[in-house]
């Protein structure tokens, strides 16, 4: 067994950490407060879409899909993806920015595997 992270994974980890530092941690509280306000129940935080676009531009979207899903995926193995999920786990609401949130990841896998696009 060799758990050394590949160069691809290390490069993405660096990129993701930087993204979290610059774009996510400074607004972590603000987003929590938005969602805590009962007036905003079941509303999406307005800044999310632009954050998602930023993540896409940085090449940090859909990194969870294993390589076997072809063009849709970033081609990472589970071992390469694991440390990225760890970094996202540090902020509860962050994985959606990268399209890596439950339950959608599981559902998307099902659809990529059994669905017809």
């Amino acid at each position, binding site marked *: *067994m*060799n*758990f050394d992270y590949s160069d691809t994974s290390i490069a993405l980890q660096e990129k993701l950490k930087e993204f979290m530092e610059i774009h996510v941690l400074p607004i*972590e509280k603000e987003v*929590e407060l938005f*969602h*805590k306000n009962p007036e*905003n*129940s*079941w*509303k*999406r*935080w307005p800044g999310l879409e632009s954050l*998602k676009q930023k993540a896409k531009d940085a090449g940090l*979207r*859909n990194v*969870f899909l*294993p390589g076997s899903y072809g063009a*849709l995926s970033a081609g990472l*193995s*589970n*071992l390469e*993806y*694991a*440390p990225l*999920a*760890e*970094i*996202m*786990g*540090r*902020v*509860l609401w962050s*994985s*959606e920015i990268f*399209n*890596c*949130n*439950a*339950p*959608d*990841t*599981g*559902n*998307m*896998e*099902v659809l*990529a*595997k*059994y*669905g017809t696009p």
Partner: protein
Amino acid sequence: MNGDIRSAFLMTEPEVASSDATNIETAIVSDGNDYVINGRKWWASGAMDPNCKIAIVMGKTDFDAPRHVQQSMILVPMDTPGLKIERGLSVFGYTDSPEGHAEIILNNVRVPKTNLLLGEGRGFEIAQGRLGPGRIHHCMRLIGMAQRALEIMSERTVQRKPFGRTLDTYSSVRQDIARSACEIQQARLLVLSAAYKMDKVGNKEAKDLIAMIKIVTPQMALKVIDRAIQILGGKGVGSDTPLAHFFAAARVLRLADGPDEVHMSQLGKSTINKYIQASNV
């Protein structure tokens, strides 16, 4: 896949013990070119989100078939007539807005036959494939939470000074931090070994390791987050740090995707089988 829409997974039902998926009683009945679905679901994560457009629903297409081929999975657009969101549920008071967790009624919900995934009776097969990678993701996120909790409590130890000296000089505090560091790294390596095995030989062969991480990681995270809360004192249970919400989120994962006991039952059985087979030869 573009992340423009969101989805929900509707398996669990309020009326039956859903940790045993063979109990699921939502009916998916064939009618001409359609299926008609009736049942009640709850804990459908993500379903409250206004962007949630599609649900994967698990139900029975054949109540008389052998137990593991009664179930099927079918795609249901959230705006299909007859699908009604009854309410949003909360977890220790957290609604997890905007995704939320919904209770949903399916009343004569009609969808075309082509919405059925893979084929009638193959719901179990899909469910098993679905949950492997999802568990790695949940577990790694839990490790991220525990790691951050460790960092938060470590920082705090040098800032607080009860009874004349800072917390970092107390041996009980050092032990809490040392144990947390050990347990996080143990869980991390276990998850990485499960990920490695999934990559090398596939989800099915890795199932024992996947069960192990699902059992070990939420409990580890809860323990570490609990220590962090204790070291932070009142601040730990308030909303100025992420710890309280982490605790709620980690507690859920001893239930969601199957309660600990179900994974232990499967792992226990598989382990016993391995050794009785070995001793027979």
